[in-house]
């Protein structure tokens, strides 16, 4: 499940005054006792102690905070929102106290303190970060833990955005924090960033962890060797890193004693000899830290677990960035490290890797291995992941079954009593609902899909793709004939002809293309569905998606332009005048050159390079995906606006599709057709014809607007290393099949062009040309009711009503309805 390190109660930092028991005040002693009780999971005792403590220190925010935390363990978190409120109150109170105490301090020694220091500092005014001040007045009103706990609750509530905004300030000022808390902050932040799929930030945190906690498992296995060597080679004085080891602090101090005897300079001192001591320059090795500090003794024991944990994050991050080759290698490292542990996590990751590589059978096998499949949380994971694999194998219906089962198990966590905070976060029903929705979409069930997506909304509402999918429900409903819109085709289209009168008076009334008589079934849609599946809602979804996509792309470009700001853990760019450029180039590489010495530099850069190439790869993938998403959004918008009879808007969306760089030819075709229709509706048939005539070659022949290859995605190259060489080709084949079934074939697209061009010709009074085009189009789309009607229209326009009747009689999708029935209706 989980590295043992985390299974234990998080080791709370002991009261720092532990060394001088004698000096502890009564309250401090009680506080210590309470902490011990908490650690020992004796929450009831702890609460009693805290109540007593509260009597003595009424209104102390930290006591209140700990009380709330303890109660949450006692009551099994009855109400996380109440807890959030308490924490908010406590934090506010702390901050008020900080202000008060700072004012006090300022009035006490403020002026005298600041004035003389300027004399040597050349009188420059120095920037002073607020965080520094806060930490100066530190401990008593320190809100780090409160803030962290707030983030924990938000994380469990799946409110990752808020959790990130709460936790990020802590991470930005993580240095002064004690290591235990810092580790907790980093790990929580890692989980949050992974949930938010923010690879850049996650890389930053992982690199910070590696740097500061010395738990680097270098990405290049060969380099592992060099570390011990470096350490061996270190002469005295011992390597200094930013986290001074307390273990050899004596030797350290001793070294200083020696130096200090000789250093305090006299005029007589030989500088050469003084500095010659520095010439035998020591190598700066990076220590693999196996003990952090006095305060985190029990963490020290689990340094190995720390490594495992970090490695797990690394693999997850690599999988997120789809750097499968490196992920595979790192996973191997992880498997080696994790020998003898509960390996469910590792096996799941391995299964995910095989899934990502397209080795589905292997993935299923690995997925089935973990044996603790009794807990609902694990069962939910199992069925969900199985569903994902089945989806890839195109067993959509089985896949739905799996997801539903996963959903059931996941939801059962909610009803568990007593409700635990962790159970909240284990409830992944939002994610599973999304998967479920996708499957329903694939299986052509728009209403079910929409209601699944509604369930998934809380976690996905910030993702453009989510809103695109949501809108696709309505478009699918349109296609399936559940919705209807003027001019849109559905699979249930038919031509209905009313036969009115009899004998000599018999008249045939040709109706526009209509949905087969199933409004009634569509009318059944309950109110909620009506809200989720409609063209208006689809438009809203698409606009959301467009806004979000613009926002993320803007954000990305901002990040790219000032990386230094977000690389918190990286070098604090030394921003002095004239050095701006060095500083910024420095911080662009988000590794820790600060700490790498000359020998270690190679290691630093190679680590860096792996992550950098991973990120670059991921960015590229994201960019391509965003392009696809954008063209789909704009194409759909143009379509929806046409359906909603807003030709002007449709025209502008269609134009913006055409302005996209690297737009797929299929979308180019669609946007030409949409724009042409909009132009026709706007009484500009000539412009419309111009739009469509880009496809005309050699007189009246129309070329295929796109072909199968470029109509769809170029398959992302999978990392196949021969193990499962069959699988990738199978996928490829299957993907092509699906394209065919889902979208217009190129030949049909050509037929569409003929018909629509014919219509523009008719609008311009060129009946001959129209007749020619439409008849060619009809030959390509003999079963399309609209094509038939187009031909009938042209016939009627020319007064050839008998020919029109003949065509109608031949067509498959025509239904003659006796008028008497209609009359009675």
């Amino acid at each position, binding site marked *: 499940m989980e590295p043992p390190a985390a299974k234990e109660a998080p080791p709370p930092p002991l009261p720092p005054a532990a060394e001088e028991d004698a000096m502890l005040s009564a309250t401090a002693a009680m506080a210590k006792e309470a902490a011990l009780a*908490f650690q020992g999971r004796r929450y009831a005792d702890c609460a009693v102690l805290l109540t007593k403590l509260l009597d003595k220190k009424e209104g102390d925010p930290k006591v209140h905070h700990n009380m709330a*935390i303890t109660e949450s363990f006692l009551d099994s978190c009855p109400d996380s929102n109440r807890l959030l409120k308490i924490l908010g109150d406590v934090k506010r109170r702390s901050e008020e106290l900080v202000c008060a105490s700072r004012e006090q301090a300022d009035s006490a020694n403020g002026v005298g303190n600041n004035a003389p220091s300027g004399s040597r500092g050349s009188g420059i005014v120095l920037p002073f970060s607020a965080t520094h001040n806060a930490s100066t007045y530190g401990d008593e009103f320190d809100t780090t*833990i409160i803030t962290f706990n707030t983030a924990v609750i938000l994380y469990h509530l799946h409110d990752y955005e808020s959790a990130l905004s709460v936790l990020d300030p802590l991470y930005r000022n993580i240095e002064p924090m004690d290591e235990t808390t810092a580790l907790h902050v980093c790990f929580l932040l890692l989980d949050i960033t992974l949930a938010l799929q923010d690879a850049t930030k996650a890389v930053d945190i992982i690199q910070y962890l590696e740097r500061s906690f010395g738990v680097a498992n270098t990405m290049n296995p060969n380099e592992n060797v060099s570390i011990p060597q470096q350490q061996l080679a270190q002469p005295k004085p011992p390597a200094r890193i930013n986290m001074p080891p307390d273990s050899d602090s004596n030797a350290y101090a001793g070294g200083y004693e020696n130096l200090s005897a000789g250093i305090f300079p006299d005029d007589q001192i030989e500088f050469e000899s003084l500095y010659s001591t520095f010439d035998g320059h020591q190598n700066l090795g990076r220590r693999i830290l196996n003990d952090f500090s006095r305060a985190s003794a029990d963490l020290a024991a689990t340094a190995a677990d720390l490594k495992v944990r970090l490695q797990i994050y690394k693999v997850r991050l690599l999988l997120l960035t789809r750097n499968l080759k490196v992920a595979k290698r790192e996973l191997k490292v992880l498997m080696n490290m994790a020998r003898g542990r509960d390996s469910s996590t590792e096996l799941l990751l391995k299964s995910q890797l095989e899934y990502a590589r397209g080795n589905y059978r292997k993935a299923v096998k690995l997925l089935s291995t973990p044996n603790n499949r009794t807990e609902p949380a694990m069962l939910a994971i199992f069925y969900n992941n199985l569903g994902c694999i089945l989806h890839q194998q195109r067993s959509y219906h089985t896949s739905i079954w799996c997801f539903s089962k996963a959903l059931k198990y996941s939801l059962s966590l909610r009803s568990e009593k007593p409700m635990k905070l962790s159970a909240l976060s284990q409830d992944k029903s939002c994610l599973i609902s999304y998967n479920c929705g*996708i499957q329903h979409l694939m299986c052509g069930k728009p209403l079910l899909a929409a209601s699944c997506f509604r369930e998934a909304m809380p976690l996905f509402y910030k993702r453009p793709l989510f809103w*695109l999918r949501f809108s696709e429900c309505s478009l699918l409903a349109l296609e399936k004939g559940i919705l209807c819109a003027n001019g849109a085709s559905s699979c249930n289209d038919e031509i209905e002809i009313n036969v009115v*009168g009899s004998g000599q008076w018999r008249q045939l009334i040709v109706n526009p293309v209509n949905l087969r008589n199933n409004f009634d079934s569509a009318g059944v849609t309950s109110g909620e569905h009506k809200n989720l599946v409609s063209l208006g809602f689809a438009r809203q979804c698409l606009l959301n998606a467009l806004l979000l996509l613009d926002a993320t792309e803007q954000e990305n470009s901002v990040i790219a332009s000032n990386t230094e700001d977000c690389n918190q853990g990286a070098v604090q760019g030394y921003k002095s005048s004239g050095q701006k450029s060095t500083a910024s180039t420095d911080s662009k590489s988000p590794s820790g050159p600060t700490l790498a010495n000359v020998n270690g530099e190679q290691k630093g850069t190679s680590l860096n390079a792996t992550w950098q190439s991973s990120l670059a790869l991921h960015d590229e993938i994201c960019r391509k995906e965003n392009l696809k998403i954008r063209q789909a959004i704009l194409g759909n918008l143009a379509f929806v606006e046409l359906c909603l009879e807003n030709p002007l808007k449709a025209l502008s969306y269609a134009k913006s599709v055409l302005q996209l760089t690297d737009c797929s030819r299929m979308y180019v075709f669609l946007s030409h057709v949409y724009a042409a229709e909009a132009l026709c509706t706007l009484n500009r048939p000539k412009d419309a014809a111009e739009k469509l005539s880009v496809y005309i070659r050699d007189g009246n022949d129309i070329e295929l607007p796109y072909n199968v290859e470029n109509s769809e995605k170029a398959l992302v190259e999978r990392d196949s290393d021969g193990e499962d060489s069959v699988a990738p080709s199978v996928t490829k084949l299957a993907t092509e099949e699906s394209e065919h079934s889902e979208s217009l074939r190129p030949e049909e697209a050509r037929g569409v062009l003929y018909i629509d061009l014919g219509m523009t010709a*008719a609008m311009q009074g060129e009946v001959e040309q129209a007749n020619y085009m439409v008849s060619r189009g009809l030959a390509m789309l003999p079963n399309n009711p609209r094509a038939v009607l187009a031909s009938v229209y042209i016939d009627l326009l*020319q007064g050839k009503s008998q020919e029109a009747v003949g065509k109608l009689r031949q067509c498959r999708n025509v239904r003659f309805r006796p008028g008497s029935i209609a*009359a009675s209706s």
Partner: protein
Amino acid sequence: MSVKKDDEAGTSPPAPPRVAVAAAAAPKPSTYAPMGALRGEECADLLALVSAVSRPLEDAVADFLARVPPERRPRFGNAVSFVLEDKMMLQPAERLVAFAILHQGYSSQLANPFLPLLINAACDETSEKAEQAFLQVLLSSTNGDNSEVLKQSAVDYLNGSDYASQVFLPREQLVKQCSYDVARPLPFSSNFRDATVRSAILDPDVFQSVGNSSEVSSIIPNRDDMVATLLQQTSLKGLPPQWIRPSPPRLEILEGELQWLNIDNNHELLWDGTMCADTSRGAVIRDLVDQACKGPLAVAQQEKIIEDLGKDWKLVYHCGMTPQKLPDLVEHNPLIAVEVLSKLINSPDMDAYFDVIVHMDMSLHSMEVVNRLTTAVVLPPGFVHDYISNCIRSCEDIKDKYMQNRLVRLVCVFLQSLIRNKIIDVQDLFVEVQAFCIAFSRIREAVGLFRLLKSLE
């Protein structure tokens, strides 16, 4: 069979009732209904009205105004014109009544929406003479003075011979007379949608030959039935041009779009260990650091600071150190300064500390601090370069020869140390350092540094 092509100038039908279009276009399946259809009783009304061929025409018009409420009139009128379009559907007398209704019943409106239709019919050479004449009379007379005609019944008019002498005005004159401006901009409507063809096709299942007038009258109930059904059922708009609007494809499921689940890490709530903590934490070191900024500390005091920081290096953030205090600390206790700075290296305020060091007065102590820092931690290259530049500048500025020699020697040794240890890249500072060496070539260490530089070239 009349084929109506509406985009020919002047023949545009009345703008279809926009309200009706909007309602039908709304994507709500439940509200779907054939456009412009009449209610059952209205069809009966219509047929009853036009069949009153033997009553005076003005009575028929009055009847129309009484029976059809104003809000239904546009639709009713459309139905009438639809029926008129097919010349077979109504008998000649009935047609006259229908025309009269269209002319008179809508004359109160600002502009009679059916004028174009009436003018067309008046100029239609293929129509019956009587009908054309009747329309000419109606259209050419100014309001009110056509009462003569309207006092007659339709049958009387047809049986009479007045129409034979009727002067047929050319189309342009009629248009002028009716103060109907062909070019009058209609409220926006899409010609594309309105370019409909009549969607009713006569498709008799008996042979055409039976169509003589006596038989027509004999099957009037049959016809009434047909007209009623037709009007109730059809969109009177006809068949619009057909356009194929392909649906956009569904975006393929992206890689990694399906959510794979992993086992969660457990993040538990943390106990705040600083509750009621001894606030004297760091008090000792804070005092010592404060003292250290005022004067040199005793060895024991220095050891205490180093020991405390060694035990818990994060204390460095709680010892009251600020960038402003740094110059004093450096001057009085360089070792402590090194100790503190090397632990603050990742502090958010480190830039400020670096800034102070660069800008403080050059001294042996500051150089010692920097030199020790370079060996303890990796410093930003920008800082080291700035610092060296400042060293060189200080050497040049110093007036006292003895002190200058001292400082130059110190800087040379310092630079050699940095270069040998590859703390700095010589190339970055080559010109500056070279100039420095040449300026002070009288000093042995400068020559040594110069040689070192050359050897690296």
